[in-house]
């Protein structure tokens, strides 16, 4: 019998090239953030100079602080509401407007951000809301809760329902069964959802630009306005710090999903 070889040379080459393509640019950015030279492309030896420069830059620090607060607040609200949405979709029976509900949850995953941003801004203007921390937080919550809902829903879908049934057969009220059986089982997916929401919020430029007000720029907005003027080594340093923060978040999230996979199937689709 002739066997199709499982891993051809072509497979290996495309994998290696693909991963190099994904990682080299980020690696180069990180290395050059430690460059002593002002010219981004000339190597002048290792130095932490641009990190000091960042910590002296009040506007950048303020923007970072704003971004972190928005990310924590919006990720937390999004995780609460997104988890509720996931439970409703995977455990609720058919209810009126269910198609519209799931439609509204899945559409923002791919909706161009210029549309979401513009429409939210027009709402805030119509409501006469003062634009700043809360408008950006609400906007980010609206986007990221959809990602949380998908991650948690896919975990709920792969869960063995006989556990919930057993709890209820043994006399648990539905709410009790949910809190003491289902919730611990989906907890890793909820944690992963929070992390994803956090990084998405930290990253967003377009929606934040539309929904923020004067004087409360987020970090991506500051970075963007600097990048438009050209490459600056200080930006490399800031980007490296953001990457480091996200790396910590990823490690925590993967620990959470390891916990989840040891209890069943792996959770996150993204």
């Amino acid at each position: 019998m002739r066997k199709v070889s499982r891993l051809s040379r072509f497979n290996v080459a495309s994998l290696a090239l693909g991963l190099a393509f994904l990682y080299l640019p980020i690696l180069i950015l990180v290395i050059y953030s430690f460059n002593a030279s002002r010219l981004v492309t000339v190597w002048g030896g290792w130095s932490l100079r641009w990190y000091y420069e960042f910590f002296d830059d009040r506007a950048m620090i303020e923007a970072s602080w704003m971004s972190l607060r928005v990310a924590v607040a919006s990720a937390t609200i999004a995780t609460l509401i997104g988890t509720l949405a996931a439970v409703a979709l995977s455990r609720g029976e058919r209810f009126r407007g269910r198609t519209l509900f799931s439609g509204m949850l899945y559409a923002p995953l791919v909706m161009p951000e210029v549309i979401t941003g513009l429409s939210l801004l027009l709402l805030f203007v119509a409501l006469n809301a003062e634009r700043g921390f809360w408008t950006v937080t609400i906007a980010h919550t609206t986007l990221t809760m959809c990602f949380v809902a998908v991650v948690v829903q896919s975990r709920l879908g792969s869960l063995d329902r006989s556990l919930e049934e057993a709890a209820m057969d043994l006399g648990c009220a539905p709410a009790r069964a949910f809190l003491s059986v289902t919730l611990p089982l989906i907890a890793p997916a909820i944690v992963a959802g929070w992390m994803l929401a956090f990084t998405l919020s930290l990253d967003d430029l377009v929606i934040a630009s539309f929904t923020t007000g004067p004087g409360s720029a987020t970090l991506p907005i500051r970075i963007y306005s600097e990048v438009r003027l050209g490459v600056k080594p200080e930006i490399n340093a800031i980007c490296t710090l953001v990457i480091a923060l996200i790396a910590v978040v990823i490690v925590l999230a993967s620990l959470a999903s390891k916990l989840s996979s040891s209890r069943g199937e792996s959770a996150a689709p993204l």
Partner: protein
Amino acid sequence: MSGRRIFARPARFAAIAPYVWMVLFFLVPFGFVLKISLSQTAIAQPPYEPVFDLTAGWTAIQAAFAALSLDNFKLLVSDDLYVFAYLRSLTVAVTATALLLLIGYPIAYGMARLPKRWQAVAMVLVIVPFWTSFLIRIYAWINILQHDGLLNRILLALHLVSRPVVWLSTDTAMYIGIVYSYLPFMILPLYATLAKMEPALEEAAADLGAPPWQVFWLVTFPLSLPGVGAGVLLCFIPIVGEFVIPDLLAGSNSLMIGQTLWLEFFTNKDWPVASAAAIVLLVVLLAPLLLYERLQRRQLEEQ
């Protein structure tokens, strides 16, 4: 006890908060976009003349409906600038999606053929850049592609070119940026279908004498079509409305619709035209959006 029905009633209550939130912050805002797209531009703050004022009573609303204006939409259709922007957005999205499929497929295929243990590692490696900031990844490419950037210096050192090539502000740079940013979105759904595929099917085709390219083209590829569909939609829809990548990497002589919208809104302060542009963009994307939702629903609910 019926398994499907557990929690049914309380779970329905769980829908209330997210439902209200999404109606208020996702659905209702589109009404405002539509309303303002039908308004007149004004030099004021906010920069538009409201078409109707709900506090003014029924007759005023009727009068306002009579005064609705399609001028902004007429402008979008008659002005070449906008027509070209839409055409360019679609062309860029189609080209970039094709490139992504061409580059992403071999990578996903390679992943699916790794031993099981390595598959998990490869998957994490593909997902990690997705978590890294979008803006930072574009900025990383500006570092590499600029006039005295790494790419030009390597090319010069290898004597492949005699003077630095202009990379930034070209379509090439933009395509590199788009492919780089969206690659995980293409690879993951492709990998998901390819990994589930029964290897015996490919082996059977090979046993029956099919050469490798035929095995791929007649067996593997058709079976992976659901993944291809998901990946294509996941990339195509957001790329059509993309703003950051063309703004930072492409030249400024031809704009995509996301850039035009941004320009009308932030620079020209013409909110009605920006809103009309958003409505047209939404209409263009409606069919792929609905298709994507159906795929997503089927994937999540028929587990």
